[in-house]
């Protein structure tokens, strides 16, 4: 029948999975162009700027991964630093030089003290560890909603910090592990960011992502549509945790140190601010806000030092947050992606 053959493009977007061919080419070209820019930066700028760039990439990846948990699924989790700490310690213990490990970390089991892995396996195991912890606590923590979930995950940061501080036979306590091999350069960070963005983008524009948004919007109606809301929330929480743990591992091997306080509540605040300013659920927004905030707080550092007002950058970031919430409560990009970006990468319309 002619009537049923007639397909409206706007409907087509929502029903069925979209495999954007043109979008893939556009994405590949963008990644190549960005890679060329990174290459140019690596050769044209100082080591400081390049490290800053790597930091920016990892921050952006963190913000995008939080978009998945907090933005799409609406779980107000502040637990990212906890998973970063877990990932950082796991990876650090795995990559640390086997010669020094035995004496520095006396409580390590023999086989672990003798292991010295390269970055990639350490990174994957770190992600796995973060995911397993999230899976174990998710069932309990995700019964909580809104502010209660935020407080519980905030507590998680403290618990992990306490463990890292006091389990000194394995973590060296408050002093932390310094002198980690500097395995991570700007390319690792760039590759990780591309991976996180691609993963999140694919999830967002699949029926899985739509189901996550449905749970965020209305859990009752989502369950009436046949969505297992509890399982979906755990999935979003675990994926966020895996990515956070990997980011923690990368960051520690970039700055070659991890202490119990490296990834703190302050960091949770910063990432949440990035997501909120960018627009909860918007990947473009998270990227833009992460870049803006990282550059802003780094460029304010010399100002802080010359004026003697330490913490000024935090104040300004907080002011930006208040300003955005006042002028654009849904964030710069709302929960969608700007039209240009959408058209470029998926060849489809999103309301």
């Amino acid at each position, binding site marked *: 029948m002619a009537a049923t053959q007639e397909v409206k493009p706007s*409907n087509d977007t929502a029903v069925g999975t979209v495999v954007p061919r043109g979008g893939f080419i556009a994405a590949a070209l963008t990644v190549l162009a960005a890679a060329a820019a990174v290459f140019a930066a690596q050769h044209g700028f100082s080591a400081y700027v390049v490290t800053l760039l790597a930091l920016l990439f990892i921050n952006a990846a963190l913000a995008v991964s939080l978009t998945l948990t907090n933005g799409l699924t609406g779980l107000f989790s502040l637990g990212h630093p906890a998973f970063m700490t877990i990932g950082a310690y796991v990876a650090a213990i795995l990559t640390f030089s086997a010669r020094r490990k035995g004496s520095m970390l006396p409580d390590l089991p023999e086989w672990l003290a003798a292991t010295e892995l390269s970055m990639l396996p350490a990174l994957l195991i770190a992600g796995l560890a973060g995911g397993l912890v999230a899976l174990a606590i998710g069932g309990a923590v995700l019964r909580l909603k809104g502010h209660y979930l935020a407080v519980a995950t905030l507590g998680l940061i403290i618990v992990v910090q306490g463990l890292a501080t006091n389990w000194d036979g394995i973590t060296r306590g408050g002093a932390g592990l310094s002198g980690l091999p500097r395995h991570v350069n700007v390319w690792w960070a760039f590759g990780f960011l591309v991976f996180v963005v691609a993963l999140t983008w694919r999830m967002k524009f699949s029926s899985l992502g739509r*189901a996550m*948004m449905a749970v965020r*919007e209305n859990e009752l*109606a989502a369950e*009436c*549509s046949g*969505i297992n809301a509890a399982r979906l929330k755990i999935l979003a929480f675990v994926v966020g945790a895996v990515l956070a743990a990997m980011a923690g591992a990368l960051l520690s091997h970039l700055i070659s140190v991890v202490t119990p306080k490296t990834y703190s509540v302050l960091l949770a605040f910063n990432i949440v601010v990035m997501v909120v300013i960018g627009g909860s659920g918007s990947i473009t927004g998270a990227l833009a806000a992460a870049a803006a905030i990282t550059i802003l707080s780094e460029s304010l550092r010399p100002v802080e030092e010359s004026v003697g007002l330490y913490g000024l950058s935090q104040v300004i970031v907080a002011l930006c947050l208040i300003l955005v919430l006042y002028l654009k409560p849904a964030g710069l990009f709302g929960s969608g992606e700007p039209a240009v970006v959408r058209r470029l990468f998926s060849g489809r319309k999103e309301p």
Partner: protein
Amino acid sequence: MLEIRDLNVFRGATHVLKGVSFQVREGELAALIGANGAGKSTTLLTLSGLLRPRSGTAILRSGGKEFDLTRLASEKIVRAGLIHCPEGRQIFQSLSVAENLAMGAYAQRDKVRIRETLDEVHSLFPILAERAGLAAGSLSGGEQMMLAIGRALLARPRMLLLDEPSLGLAPQVVEKIFDVIARLKSTGVTILLIEQNAAMALEVADAAHVMENGRIVLSGTGAELASNDRVRQSYLGIAA
């Protein structure tokens, strides 16, 4: 099609359903009427697996199989063909109309059939096709109700639970919704309808059950109950 026996449901410490039993036959449009707080919505939430009873059974016979609704997870109940359209137009506000409808088909895999069902829903409610790209929250109350029903239809229900579809809607819209309910029934969907608008519900219902304080106090055909003195006084506002 549906057989409920001696359901006891608690919400917190409150004993809401006190031994509810009734049946809905295949292809029937059954109405459940009663005052606020009688336990109508609780009944539906229990049937769709969102609340668990303390005791009692609810058996759905669908597609030649039997499902124990008191044990089955809610997403499996949806797959068994029992679709709940909850009270108060529970739509996904910031998702588009098209995305809301797509969520209804979440448990469906056959894309051709999803497309067909979508076309059917669009022919029932043409406004949903016109508004496909808009955020669902921007629709009027009546349109949101149509969207909620349309979303439920995309799940291809064998049995549909409708909770107060006329709530807060203009009379013409209520008319329209009831038209659609009648058309659904004629396509063979079994329907259990909750209504405060008892007059309207009894007019279309094959069978009706009156609920008071967590118990079924009267059952009969729609016409029987419409002429029952107690029902006329309490629910139709007509002096005996």
